[in-house]
């Protein structure tokens, strides 16, 4: 064992001259190359600290002739670091040393290292010099060299695609797919995948025979090789259901691999192949097989758990039978990191059904007493969403919410008010009995969203709340200082109050006061316009105004809270990848990334075909991710304000920028604005047959919400 600090002392800021002298001295009387090695170590240490060692170029290069692998490696590192900035010298060195001697060395490690080093230096002369040795390496007798060469082709393609095509390296890569060594096969697959991702002309398409052979070769591959091969299988389009089933049958066994990435990539391929199957029994069997390995991922570290959870969330939306009975696995531990907790919460809500609603609610109530405020808020919100989603559980949910309100913790209370408003909407006439309890807590509310929700409740149920005039009057006290969201709701609530209690002078005074403020004192055009509209309505015909303002509202449900089927199918092709973490198609946020889409074939499942999304022929890059999307109401997904669009436009207009909904520290919240949300968080929406509901209108046997 080396003594502590023995190497660490190399990390002193070295002087170029000193090193040069050391190297020169090392040329004589350095039988064991120890002097040279020590000097080079110091130089490399300095490179890693970011000190410029490039003036030593000629001296260091001299060491290339030293027959020591360790020294060669350090010189290669030096070449890679400074090659680009010293084109003239490199052009002299490379052909002389690497191409002439190292590429023909007896030692396969040195042969491989030589081509690798050259492929790292993107200078035309170097790349040209690489062509011949690379061709030889692709046919080298040693698999280590062949597998290194395969990756080098992809690198070369990145720097000079024309050169690669001219030298027909692609064909040679294709030949390597039949190599006897499976690591070489998997590296060739990886290289071809990378090239087809970057090229417009070349795209990897596998037929059944090749796909099958690759799957057979997988058994002997390293975990990384297995991942490359599995990933490449998405380039295979099954032409018959049998093909898909046979392949799936061979892949299922990979679910038992110890490497979590192998497991998740296998699941991605299985989900993909399931689109091309029609035998329900097989599909069910595969779904059953997928659950346990997903659960096993949760025994890993929090990072892996997080990725797994985000993916599980997608998978259970498309294949709800997976993990159907495993909601308990997703219960949060107090010591879980917050990002794991939030991801678990989302899944718990998804998996909640009548049968397990009680357990889930009890858990959510538990979380509502924890320390972390964001988590508590999400938990309370989930209780509300659960009440809306699972009708038989709504009584229990209301009970839980009332108990939480009794705890008098301000942010819990505010969140509870917000969700109760939605519950009122969902089950009209069922829970109005709790109105007095809500009204007792008005004073605590200080967040715009909660306040607006409470005001909506007062306005909507003005006829049932005895002192509604008084309550509203109190709230109006600070009208001019309120945020636009609260102002809008106050305006509408006052109008409702007046419509209900047109005989009350106090109500009349109130509405007058508000309309005057809205139209004369406020700069917000939205508020002003609405004020004028109400005013005229009331002036022309109070009866009509009543009909409009108190029109029957469409019931809300959480039906629309899941992703559209076609989009889901598309995202699932990216299972495990960044896209699945952020729930966006990659072309919208990654440079050079391409969307994937299911490809039609005779075997494609009817349900998948119906929602098939095809990619545009000419690939158009997604919008620059730093530019926020135009603020159209439909792309403002996280706002619960969208959830109460009364027919008369009530408090739902999200036009004002001042009222961001409070969703702080949601791990994906900041992405929402960056990417222009395509994935809607599940806020309850009015039930409409909008275009976004294609997938649910038709019979969908595999979507069980």
């Amino acid at each position, binding site marked *: 064992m080396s003594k502590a600090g023995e190497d660490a002392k190399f990390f002193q800021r070295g002087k170029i001259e000193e090193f040069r002298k050391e190297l020169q001295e090392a040329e004589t009387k350095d039988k064991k190359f*120890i002097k040279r090695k020590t000097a080079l170590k110091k130089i490399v240490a300095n490179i890693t600290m970011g000190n410029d060692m490039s003036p030593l170029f000629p001296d260091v290069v001299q060491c290339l002739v030293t027959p*020591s692998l360790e020294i060669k490696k350090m010189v290669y590192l030096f070449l890679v670091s400074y090659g680009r900035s010293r084109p003239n010298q490199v052009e002299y060195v490379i052909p002389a040393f690497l191409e002439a001697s190292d590429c023909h060395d007896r030692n396969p490690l040195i042969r491989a290292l030589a081509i690798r080093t050259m492929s790292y230096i993107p200078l035309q002369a170097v790349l040209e010099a690489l062509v011949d040795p690379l061709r030889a390496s692709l046919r080298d007798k040693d698999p280590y060299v062949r597998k290194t060469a395969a990756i080098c082709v992809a690198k070369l393609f990145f720097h000079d695609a024309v050169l690669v095509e001219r030298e027909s390296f692609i064909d040679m890569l294709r030949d390597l797919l039949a190599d006897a060594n499976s690591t070489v096969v998997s590296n060739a697959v*990886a290289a071809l995948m990378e090239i087809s991702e970057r090229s417009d002309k070349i795209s990897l398409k596998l037929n059944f025979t090749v796909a099958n052979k690759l799957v057979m070769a997988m058994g*002997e591959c390293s975990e990384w090789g297995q991942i490359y091969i599995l990933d490449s299988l998405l380039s295979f389009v099954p032409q018959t259901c049998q093909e898909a089933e046979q392949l799936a049958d061979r892949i299922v066994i990979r679910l038992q691999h110890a490497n979590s990435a192998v497991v998740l990539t296998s699941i991605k391929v299985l989900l993909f192949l399931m689109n091309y199957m029609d035998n329900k029994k097989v599909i069910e069997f595969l779904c059953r097989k997928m659950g346990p390995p997903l659960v096993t991922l949760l025994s890993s570290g929090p*990072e892996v758990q997080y990725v*797994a959870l985000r993916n599980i969330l997608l998978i259970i939306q498309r294949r709800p039978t997976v993990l159907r009975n495993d909601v308990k696995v997703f219960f949060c531990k107090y010591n879980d990191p917050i990002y794991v907790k939030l991801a678990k919460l989302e899944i718990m809500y998804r998996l909640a059904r009548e049968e397990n609603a009680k357990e889930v609610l009890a858990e959510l109530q538990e979380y509502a007493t*924890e320390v972390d405020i964001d988590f508590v808020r999400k938990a309370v919100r989930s209780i509300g969403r659960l009440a809306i989603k699972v009708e038989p559980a709504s009584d229990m949910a209301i009970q839980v919410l009332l108990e939480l309100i009794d705890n008098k913790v301000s942010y819990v209370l505010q969140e509870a008010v917000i969700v109760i408003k939605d519950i009122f909407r969902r089950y009209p006439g069922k829970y109005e009995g709790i109105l007095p309890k809500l009204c007792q807590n008005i004073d605590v509310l200080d967040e715009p969203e909660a306040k607006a929700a409470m005001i909506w409740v007062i306005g909507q149920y003005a006829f049932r709340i005895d002192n509604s005039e008084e309550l509203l009057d109190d709230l109006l006290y600070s009208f001019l200082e309120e945020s636009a969201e609260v102002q809008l709701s106050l305006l509408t609530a006052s109008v409702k109050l007046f419509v209900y209690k047109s005989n009350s002078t106090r109500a009349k005074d109130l509405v007058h006061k508000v309309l005057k403020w809205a139209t004369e004192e406020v700069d917000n055009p939205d508020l002003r316009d609405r004020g004028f509209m109400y005013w005229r309505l009331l002036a022309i015909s109070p009866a009509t105004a009543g009909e409009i303002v108190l029109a029957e509202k469409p019931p809300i449900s959480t039906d629309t809270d899941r992703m559209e089927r076609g989009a889901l199918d598309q995202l699932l092709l990216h299972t495990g990848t960044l896209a699945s973490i952020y729930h966006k198609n990659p072309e919208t946020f990654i*440079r050079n990334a391409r969307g994937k889409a299911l490809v039609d074939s005779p075997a494609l499942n009817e349900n998948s075909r119906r929602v098939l999304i095809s990619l545009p022929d000419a690939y158009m890059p997604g919008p620059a991710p730093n530019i926020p999307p135009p603020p159209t109401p439909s792309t403002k997904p996280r706002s619960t304000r969208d959830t109460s669009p009364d027919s008369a436009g009530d408090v739902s207009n999200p036009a004002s920028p001042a009222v961001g909904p409070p969703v702080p520290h949601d791990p994906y919240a900041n992405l929402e604005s960056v990417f222009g949300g395509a994935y809607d968080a599940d806020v309850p929406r009015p039930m409409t047959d909008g275009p976004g509901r294609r997938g649910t209108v038709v019979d969908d046997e595999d979507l069980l919400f």
Partner: protein
Amino acid sequence: MTIDGLIILDHTGRPIIQSNFASSPAYPLLHIDAVNDALAKSPAGAVDPVLYVSGPSGPSACCHVACNGLRFLCPVSGEVDPLFVFAFIQTFVDILRDYFGDLSAASIRENFDIVYQLLEEVIDDGYPLTTELNALRDIVLPPTFLKKVISVAGITGLSKATGHPFSSPIPWRKAGLRYNNNEIKFDVIEDLDAIVNKNGSVVTSTVWGKVQARSHLSGVPDLLMTFTNPQVLTDCSFHPCVRLQRWTRDKSLSFVPPDGAFVLMEYRYTPPNAALTASSQANIPLPIALKSSVTLTEGGGTLDLTLTSRMGIAMQSATVELFLGSGAQSANFMVSGGGSWNFDPKTLILRWTISPVPSSSSHTLRGSFTSSETVPRIGSALKATYEIQPHSYSGLKVDQLKVSGEQYKTYKGVRLRAGGSIEFRW
């Protein structure tokens, strides 16, 4: 599927190792800053492990993992599977551990040249390359061995390190191994993970098990391991050396082991009564019980905890932890029945340790703490961890281990160890 590079930061957030990046030098710096910024903003250190990084050359993501006071960063700019990245980081950490014994900023600084050599081998242009330790040791000499070679035989590093790399027909096993004493030992380690509600009922519990092995066998032995009760194993995952077909056929493990330490299999233990319930979960009897009474008052609170062992044998140790809230100032407790307590003013965690815990014994911790908060918001769960040896929740039993293909006598051994981490809500 490529990783842009690997960066290792020390505990202050300064880079100590940085692999070669194809892009501009600003790119890795951008990621280092992004991670450091995010960590600075989050006091608990719970930063989204896949951090979104936006830069002048476009968006990218940074996957990062903390390990032994170090932080491993892998920037990715393509459509990559983050699990692939985390799996790679984990593999690299395992390799460093194997090479340097312990993993720390000091051991990495000391051996930076070896770390760089390793990086060269394990990752090529973002593709993980050679990560099998057996193969790696052939190409990059571990520090101890390297020193020995240089001092004893002069510079034969070249011939020694190369020989015939990858000459072994089995990727995970070196060719030509020779031991005087041939032995293979197995550790069956099971960990219980559970949540217990206020009323003492178990909300959820899972037992994760793994079989760790340490093999020192000559030549190419072919092993066959059978269990008397393989039905207790569910959701198994295996080291690549295990022949999966054989397992599917008769639930026996047939394999040619790697040399040295490795994890043979991982599994989940499902108790037999699980089949009766709809859920795949059923509760396993917990080896300890913890009764708590917590009273929070203005500026503090009192605790009264009783831990009872339900085991027929002694436990090596048990620890109970509780977060006393961000305003916690001091604590004063008394233990009875053996054990000790301490309060860490930095993490604000009260820790009660009992070691050993005699069979069926009872222990208490009573006392109070003070806090600057008017209503102290303390952790809503007590976390208890313990270790029992020898014990196994599943009762998994190795029936036989047959060695074929080699003539020598093999020493074999199996040890059982059980641990647990239970959250008791109060």
